[in-house]
């Protein structure tokens, strides 16, 4: 039998040096809206299983609005778009600071409010993760802590208790069964504290939205960063964490 230490040495350094590397060509990314003229055919809106797309018109042409906070990344809209207004986004820097910024369109975005992120967590952030019904997102959060993505290199650590935590990172759509537990976890944290919504289901409930379980995402906590995706890529989760810390744009 091989010596385990030798096996580890042979494995070599696994940590990705390139931060926020683009998705490889074989991967499918979240949809993005280009300024290619939209014919207003509406196929995308009908194909979307979570009603993330709305169509309108202005003086020039059709306006397509895509709410990434509801998007599953299923590609149904990209596959049926005849004008290539909806295309794949290969970026992993997909997190945003406000719910409004999750909504993208083929019109210039209104200038985003100048964000005022307190510098207090710039150098280190301790996070309590709470899972509420999307275990694939949990796996990607765990992946962000492994040797390949290594979120610890940014001074970010996942901790066992809300008492130790600066931030609450939520995955899943927060149905009736978890709302009270999540609230108590937040209340147990010392101020200042942040909340990060990791994944489409945490942002809006995603595919679960609108049911009797009221699994409509985080509704009563102030969210500092939104990470769309079902589940989001580990780099996107790290992007959301760094956004909340004020370390990246």
């Amino acid at each position: 039998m091989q010596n385990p230490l030798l096996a580890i040495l042979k494995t070599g350094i696994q940590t990705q040096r390139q931060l926020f590397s683009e998705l490889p060509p074989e991967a499918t990314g979240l949809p993005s809206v280009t300024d290619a003229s939209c014919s207003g055919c509406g196929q995308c809106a009908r194909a979307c299983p979570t009603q993330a797309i709305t169509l309108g018109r202005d003086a020039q042409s059709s306006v397509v609005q895509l709410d990434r906070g509801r998007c599953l990344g299923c590609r149904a809209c990209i596959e049926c778009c005849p004008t290539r207004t909806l295309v794949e986004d290969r970026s992993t820097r997909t997190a945003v600071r406000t719910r409004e910024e999750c909504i993208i369109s083929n019109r210039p975005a209104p200038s985003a409010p100048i964000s005022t992120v307190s510098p207090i967590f710039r150098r280190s952030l301790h996070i309590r993760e709470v899972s509420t019904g999307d275990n694939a997102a949990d796996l990607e959060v765990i992946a962000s802590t492994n040797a390949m993505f290594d979120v610890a290199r940014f001074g970010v650590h996942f901790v066992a208790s809300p008492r130790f935590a600066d931030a609450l990172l939520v995955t899943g759509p927060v149905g009736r069964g978890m709302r009270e537990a999540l609230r108590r976890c937040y209340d147990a944290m010392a101020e200042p504290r942040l909340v990060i919504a990791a994944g489409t289901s945490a942002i809006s409930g995603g595919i679960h939205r609108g049911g009797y379980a009221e699994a409509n995402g985080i509704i009563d906590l102030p969210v500092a960063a939104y990470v769309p995706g079902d589940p989001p890529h580990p780099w996107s989760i790290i992007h959301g964490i760094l956004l909340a810390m004020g370390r990246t744009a």
Partner: protein
Amino acid sequence: MTMMLTSPSAFTMLETTPEALAPRAQALARQPGWRYGHLTARALDTQHVAVDMLLLDTRQGGGTILSAPLPKGVCEYPALTPYLPAAHWAERAVGDFFGLHAAGHPRWKSLLLHDPMWPADLFPLAGAEQATCRREPYRFLEVQGEGIHEIPVGPIHAGIIEPGHFRFSCVGEIVTNLEIRLGYQHRGIEKRLTEVPWQQARFVAESASSDTAAGNALAHAVAVEQLLGITVPERAAALRTIALEIERLGNHLGDLGALSGDIGYSAGAALFPPLRGATLALAQLLTGNRRQRWFIRPGGVARDLDATRLRALRQGVIELARRAEEHTPLVLENPGVIERMDGTGRLTPALARDFGIVGPAGRASGSGYDARLHFTHGLFPALAPPPAHRETGDVLARAQIKADEIAASLAIITQLLEMLPETPVCAPLPPSLPASAIGIGIVEAWRGELLHWLITDEAGNIARYAIKDPSFNNWTGLAIAVRGNLVTDFPLCNKSFNLSYSGNDL
């Protein structure tokens, strides 16, 4: 009142009375080759409800549903649990969703919808005018005796893990009883599946437990295709099989690393995450997504595998197989690891059988059941490997089963990548589902037998959609396995089962 249901497959429905249901189900389950499938209920109209018991015939790859309609105004039926202990959580779930009381159930209480989060009179799947029995406030089993103390844990746990409540009753550090109370993540999946257009149901079905995307999507697709009577093209069946095996491979490799971590064996905990990462890269090559989301769909798969990606997959699998073969003995032949896992968290074959334990946990406790041998999904049963087998039922046996299955999955994937049939990857679907029909998809997902069961109404809409995650019965296996163990060994036992909370909570 009753709906006549047809199934183009090997599943038949027989009507019976509530009184005859339990003895008939027990008699069927005792036939050679038969086993417990799933128990649920179904609203027949706004006033009437039937209790449906599915028993599986592993030799025919089919089964029988014993359906017992209850008289109008009655919300009680004789419990099956005293005859078939495997039904004990399923009957409680029927209580939560339909307001039916299983009279004579030995541990009657809510399973998923607990007070005060859920109103005592909310029964989301019951008919609007159906008689219902009120849900009682939840009471934990209180173990009495000198020196017994309780340790409540959860719903939120210390790690990055799903929520659930564990109530340990201990003498000193020894667990005498563990009561597992889940349901915190209930999202109303089964109801939602009857509300969305059937063409979009796959998105909901796949999200039942999103860490088993390929398994859930495949079980859903098989159920729908069975209903429609369509066969998927061979290449699609092969690509589905590869997706299912990659999911098994990745999760089992991850488990070997996590088990190492739980016993403080840092070398194992360091060596396996990169292997798991390598399987995610394979998944991304095949499906476009690390977690294989939205790849398998009724009719086939979402995209074909081109020559470039096929080549990359072949190389990746060869490399992964080499590393897995090299690293596995470093964990499972390490005397310190064996010492720690041997005899820990034992589940005896008799109890595993009685409680319907499936998947690697069942096969570690002497069961020969692997759905790949019996039920059509992907290229199974034709390509089914001989089932992994252990008798000791401890943490070591469950780890060894996973190691055996890693090797078997790699062999299946390697073989398929060499002989991919040249056909389209998706068959066209008709615009509607047949009326009053049953479709049942049974898949050996990485945690074990995963069952999607759908029934359409007279208009061809999905009237009832039931899911049984492999974890649903296996949670009881975990509760039994930790008895007599140190409470500090719970994380190790828990990881050796590695069950889904959200697949259970639905």
